[in-house]
């Protein structure tokens, strides 16, 4: 398989990539980076401007690989999956559904060396499961990520607005940061009420929105939530034995000492 990083993972949250290689190495699945790839390009933003540009850049990225492509970003997943079905290209997978469907919950449980008993709010990110038809989802409330999180010993807590957008998609984060933060504000109120250690995402754009958005909310509105966001693959890597340091978590904007402590300690499996 080829790993397609996209802009956000390659340029902002490389910890996701490092964690992913760690996990796949442990699972014995070969994966290597898709060299020379560009922006996927982002479905909401670029499609809003030019569909021709969107499909040509996506086709170029797809043509770089003759193996299946794996992404860890909902935006890249959407663009490459949709474009690939249009041009009959290679298979495109998202790491979360790949782990769930191909590796399986039971296998993941077996690979965990350190359980992570934390309370988390999972956030799927819209483009992971919508439009449901093209994503092969049959529910408006998926449970895939909750099960993945529970497989590594964490507790997925129910909270209001769980399936609501983070606010960052469709070019809104770039074009209308205020609106993006309004939605984030609403979402964070609900997450905060659920009293969790972390927000678990499967998309670096959502991660960015939670991570940078919280700083902005604090600076601009005095809302101090201080709930770290982390990509599932980072958590899984830690549960499979990776050093917390190497997961990149400490480089996020919002990190709490409590979370880091809990992740370092965990519950070592016999």
């Amino acid at each position, binding site marked *: 398989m080829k790993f397609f*990083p996209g*802009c*956000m993972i*390659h*340029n*902002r949250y*490389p*910890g996701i*990539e*490092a964690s992913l290689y760690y996990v796949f190495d442990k699972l014995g699945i070969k994966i290597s*980076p898709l*060299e*020379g*790839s*560009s*922006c996927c*390009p*982002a*479905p*909401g*933003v*670029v*499609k*809003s*401007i*030019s*569909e*021709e*540009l969107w499909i*040509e*850049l996506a086709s*170029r990225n797809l043509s770089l690989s003759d193996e299946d492509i794996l992404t860890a970003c909902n935006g890249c997943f959407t663009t490459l999956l949709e474009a690939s079905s249009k041009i009959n290209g290679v298979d495109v997978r998202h790491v979360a559904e790949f782990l769930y469907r191909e590796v399986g919950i039971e296998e993941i449980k077996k690979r965990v060396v350190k359980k992570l008993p934390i309370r988390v709010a999972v956030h799927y990110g*819209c*483009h992971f499961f*919508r*439009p*449901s038809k093209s994503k092969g989802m049959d529910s*408006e409330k998926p449970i895939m990520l909750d099960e993945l999180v529970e497989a590594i010993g964490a507790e997925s807590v129910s909270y209001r*607005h769980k*399936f*609501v*957008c983070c*606010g*960052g*998609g*469709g*070019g*809104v984060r*770039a*074009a*209308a940061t205020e*609106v*993006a933060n*309004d*939605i984030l504000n*609403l979402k964070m109120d609900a997450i905060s009420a659920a009293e969790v250690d972390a927000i678990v995402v499967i998309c670096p754009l959502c991660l960015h929105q939670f991570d940078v958005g919280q700083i902005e909310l604090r600076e601009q509105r005095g809302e101090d939530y201080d709930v770290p966001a982390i990509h599932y693959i980072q958590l899984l890597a830690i549960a499979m034995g990776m050093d917390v340091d*190497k997961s*990149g978590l400490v*480089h996020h904007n919002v990190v709490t000492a409590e979370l880091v402590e809990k992740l370092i300690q965990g519950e070592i499996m016999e």
Partner: protein
Amino acid sequence: MISREDIKALNTCIQCGTCIGSCYSGRFTALNTRKILMKFIAKGKPIEENDAIWFCTSCYACTERCPRNIPLTDILLKARRQLVKEKGLPGRLDKAFKALLKTGSLVPAKDEHAKLREDLGLTLYTAQFRDDAREEVSKIVEKHIGGLI
């Protein structure tokens, strides 16, 4: 562009408001997809220049729940393209597309990001860091929207 099929679908709207009730952006902004589309149906003319149209996060919640199966989000994205064609690139997206043209990335890496990758033992391998690939991508961007940037 908005096709005959799209218009056919829009005409079947029963104005039930499910899209708006499901729209979280619409709670904070003037974005009311139902009204935008209602005007479109009633007046039969394209969406007007309207800041609100840029507030859609493309979360597809409205599309998922629409009882008439109207592909609202996709139509809204098409409406944006129509607007861009008429009025040009909105200023708020200028920076991002300049970056795409120059680096092949909407969110290019700066030195600090490159260093972080190195610290984590990762190489720099995207188009931004490969001259031939970057030029190839730039050409594609230039071809389609060079005039807009």
